[in-house]
């Protein structure tokens, strides 16, 4: 009896708000946005470290600003680009997962780029000098720099992933929170809250917290492996 009630509650709950779909949407979206942002962010971060040009400091500062920019602003900006009359209107990405990924890439790439760039700046002099004394070629030196920051790259990717799954503003603005299609775990929670359904919201919330905890553990793991760096 209690058993039936329980399973009844859960099947209702899952179909009502599309909980399973929201989990799927979140996973698909974060996978693509983190993958694209990681490739772009690492490349741009390394490029920024190596390039010497007037105004480099401004670029670095702008990037730092973007790292801290409220996602909803980036969401709005993405919406302006993607809406029917916008310059990228022909993509028809508004209210799609692609559109959400687009906005998230704009949010996460600066984050990863910034982390990679500042770490690269910090270790580059020592790595370059070492590579030179070992007789490394230019290409071998560049490759060495990337390899020496392997853990930092993982850390940046994991941080980006955490940002992706927890973000609400841009996803809401671009995705439109459409059930079973662009509704993510975070936007589901806000929808549930408006409907007064706190239990379901808490369920998703706990799930997100568990994911965040796992991500934090991974991030700490990579940071810890790097500590001998700090005290030499």
């Amino acid at each position, binding site marked *: 009896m209690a058993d039936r009630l329980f399973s009844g509650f859960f099947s209702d709950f899952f179909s009502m708000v599309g909980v399973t779909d929201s989990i799927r949407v979140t996973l698909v979206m974060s996978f693509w946005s983190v993958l694209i942002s990681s490739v772009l962010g690492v490349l741009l971060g390394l490029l920024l470290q190596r390039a010497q040009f007037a105004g480099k400091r401004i670029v670095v500062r702008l990037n730092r600003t973007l790292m801290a920019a409220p996602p909803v602003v980036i969401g709005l900006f993405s919406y302006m680009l993607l809406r029917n009359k916008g310059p990228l209107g022909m993509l028809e990405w508004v209210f799609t997962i692609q559109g959400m990924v687009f906005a998230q890439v704009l949010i996460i790439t600066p984050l990863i780029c910034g982390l990679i760039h500042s770490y690269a700046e910090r270790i580059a002099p020592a790595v*370059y000098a070492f590579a*030179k004394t070992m007789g490394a070629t230019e290409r071998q030196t560049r490759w060495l720099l990337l390899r020496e920051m392997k*853990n930092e790259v993982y850390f940046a990717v994991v941080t980006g992933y955490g940002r992706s799954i927890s973000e609400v503003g841009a996803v809401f603005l671009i995705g439109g929170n459409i059930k079973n299609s662009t509704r993510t775990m975070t936007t589901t929670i806000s929808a549930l809250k408006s409907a007064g359904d706190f239990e379901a919201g808490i369920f998703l919330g706990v799930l997100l917290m568990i994911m965040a905890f796992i991500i934090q553990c991974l991030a700490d793991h990579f940071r810890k492996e790097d500590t001998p760096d700090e005290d030499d």
Partner: protein
Amino acid sequence: MRMIELEKKLGDFHLQIRDLYLAPGRIHGLIGPNGCGKTTLCRLLAGTLIADAGSIDYEGLKPRDITMTAQKPYMLHDSVYKNLVYPLRLRGIRPDETRVEQWLARCGLADKRKQSARSLSSGEQQKLSFARALIFDPQLVIVDETLSNLDPDSTRLFEGWMLERQATRSITWILISHQLPHLFRVCDEIHFLEKGRHLASGTAEQMLLHPANDAVRRFVAEQSVQSW
């Protein structure tokens, strides 16, 4: 190797070498007070720093034949073994395992080959970086206080090793050290720097036992009280 009118400015510090000749195939010692420019001069020679003016005649030595081990050696985020064979990797040379084994044994690292190099003690890191610098048979080896943290036995061991190697196939060495007895045992020539200038050169005996130059005499006298 001859340095002429070599100049480098770093902040307030100004290195100026009028004319310094380092004979090839010999072991040179570089001495002088802290901050006198020993490391700076060696970094210019190793090419990790670019001079503001002046010239260095390497007498046919190629950049890839020159190596330098730092005061604080750089350790790759990798195992002891990978660190040791890294210069061979760069040259596409397959490591000769028996030789590698021999190097590890000499450094007392035979059973630590899989350990992360960054977890080694500073003395162990210095030994490893010394071995790593020699493993690809360079022609000029600059050792910037790399052996400063070794215990007396190990220091003797590495000295013996250098001299033995020097007897079979001589290469050029530049040793920076504040351990004058150590330099006295291995060096053919000693060069003294002070405040970015080269003040005197001579054989180890001339420079460390009977220095003619006043500054050198003062420096050596102070040092010998501490460590002779």
